């Protein structure tokens, strides 16, 4: 039999994303936003922390394309600078969730029994604890800052993530190739690293994208308790929070960051959906 043409798995994934209309659009928009995050500081028309005393809370104009905020800073520039901050916070938060959640979920699933019981009870406790209490506590211990907001968001989503990963890992654990691997004498950690983790990557990728979306949303909610980025660092969630009291007087304050957040979360979710679809052909397309 002649060898079949093979595409590298990595490119294949890219290819599959590009095949789907919504996914492609989302991917391009997201890419665009990431690029903005990288080059934002160079293309921003103003200093994001500079106050223009003569221009407090002005609507969009030629000089200030998206208007100014209540202390006279250019919203466009703040948004451009804020892209990087916002995305970093979300990505780092999810990274925390990802590492801890995967570790806990896989360990729990693989070892089962007592280990599983204890870990899952702890997850239960964390799940039953209102997120805001947890967030406050974390900030209390570590002090308020953007990094700690990240940590708080990261930690508070660990239980949900770990439980999802656990159930994914459980189905892999009972698969034939794990038993086969045990039968040839591979060690537990070898099996976890080489048999289980590679086979939950699909699930991991999908959940991670979905969690990125909610992490961004949570950042904006954490602004409520002053836990976001420390001023004058521009960050979308904080900007949205600042602007929400002025919806009727100055719609542009909240609208632009709000729309930006929604777009990012939306595209990330769309991408997550597409990935889920790609990895699980039966459930979707």
């Amino acid at each position, binding site marked *: 039999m002649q060898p079949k043409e*093979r595409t590298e798995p990595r490119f294949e994934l890219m290819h599959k994303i590009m095949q789907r209309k919504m996914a492609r659009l989302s991917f391009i928009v997201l890419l665009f936003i990431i690029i903005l995050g990288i080059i934002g500081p160079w293309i921003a028309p103003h200093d994001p922390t500079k106050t223009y005393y003569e221009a407090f809370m002005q609507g969009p104009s030629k000089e200030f394309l998206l208007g100014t905020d209540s202390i006279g800073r250019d919203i466009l520039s703040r948004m451009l600078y804020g892209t990087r901050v916002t995305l970093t916070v979300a990505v780092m938060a999810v990274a925390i969730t990802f590492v801890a959640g995967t570790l806990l979920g896989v360990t729990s699933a693989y070892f089962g029994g007592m280990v599983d019981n204890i870990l899952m009870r702890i997850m239960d406790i964390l799940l039953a604890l209102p997120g805001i209490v947890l967030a406050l506590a974390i900030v209390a211990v570590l002090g308020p800052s953007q990094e700690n907001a990240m940590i708080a968001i990261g930690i508070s989503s660990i239980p949900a993530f770990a439980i999802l990963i656990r159930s994914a890992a459980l189905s892999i654990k009972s698969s034939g190739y794990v038993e086969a691997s045990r039968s040839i004498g591979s060690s537990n950690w070898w099996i976890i690293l080489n048999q289980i983790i590679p086979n939950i990557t699909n699930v991991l990728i999908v959940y991670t994208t979905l969690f990125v979306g909610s992490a961004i949303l949570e950042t904006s909610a954490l602004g409520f308790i002053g836990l976001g980025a420390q001023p004058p660092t521009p960050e979308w969630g904080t900007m949205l929070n600042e602007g929400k009291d002025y919806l009727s007087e100055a719609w542009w304050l909240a609208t632009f960051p709000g729309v930006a957040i929604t777009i990012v979360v939306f595209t990330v979710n769309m991408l997550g959906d597409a990935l889920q679809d790609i990895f699980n052909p039966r459930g979707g397309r």
Partner: protein
Amino acid sequence: MTTPLLEVKGLKKLFPIKKGMFQQPSFVHAVNGVDITIHKGETLGVVGESGCGKSTLGRCMMRLIEPTSGEIIFEGQDIRTFSKRDMHRTRRNIQMVFQNPFDTLNPKLTIQRILSEPLIAHQIPSWERQKLIEETIEIVGLNKRHLSRYAHEFSGGQRQRIGIARALILRPKLIIADEPVSALDVSIQSQILNLLQDLQEQFALTYIFISHDLSVVEHIADRVAVMYLGEVIELAKKEDLFRNPMHPYAQALLSAVPLSDPDEKKERIILKGDLPSPSNPPAGCKFNPRCHACMDICKTTVPELKEVDGNLVACHLYS
């Protein structure tokens, strides 16, 4: 007689069925006191209906699951007493081939990596690995080019060859094959059976061949154990069993095989009912509710596995 390669004595495996935290658990008697000996170079077939404990027996024999009680004597030593290290070493000598070639190969790994896994686990030096892998892959009828591919790029038969290569690569003495061909098409099945037979000759392998397909077992096995509800009810030389089964269950089993000649009529014993639940088996001979030759004693007394005409059978008819 030579010393057996593997001897299983009184092997039991009970799976607990959890009820409540404060209640006595009840048990599934998946394997219920099995005694079997296997000699070097022979093939022992194990047949029986689904759920009768064939796979559990196979897994217990290489301590993939820990038996509840009994002895497993491999080359004269009871491996149940082995430490983790010793057991690991012994694993080199006992390998397994699994039923489902679609499920037992990790889809994320190349064949190269799948085959190197046992070598790494048993610390075969890396310079020897590649040689072994290439050698083995050719032995099972594939070639080097296939090594860089993933499992999904192979047909069922080819995957099963890879599964066999994985079992073979450490050059074990005993291979436990748990329904290795039942997921395969008829035309592919014969290829794999031939391959297994060839390998047996080439490497002086000993097989425990688990299957529910009697014609396959008839073809490949030297001796056959018939299991029913966790117990061996007949253990006989293949020729004897297929010509003249003694246990009524074995008789029924054999007569149930459809014949591929429409004119060849035979007396068929249609069993009543299904396999009873292994957690709540009937008293006496476990087969008695479905047996066509059931006597009063069968309902009360468990028959023992006894030698009759050189074979073993557990039935009151022969006492």
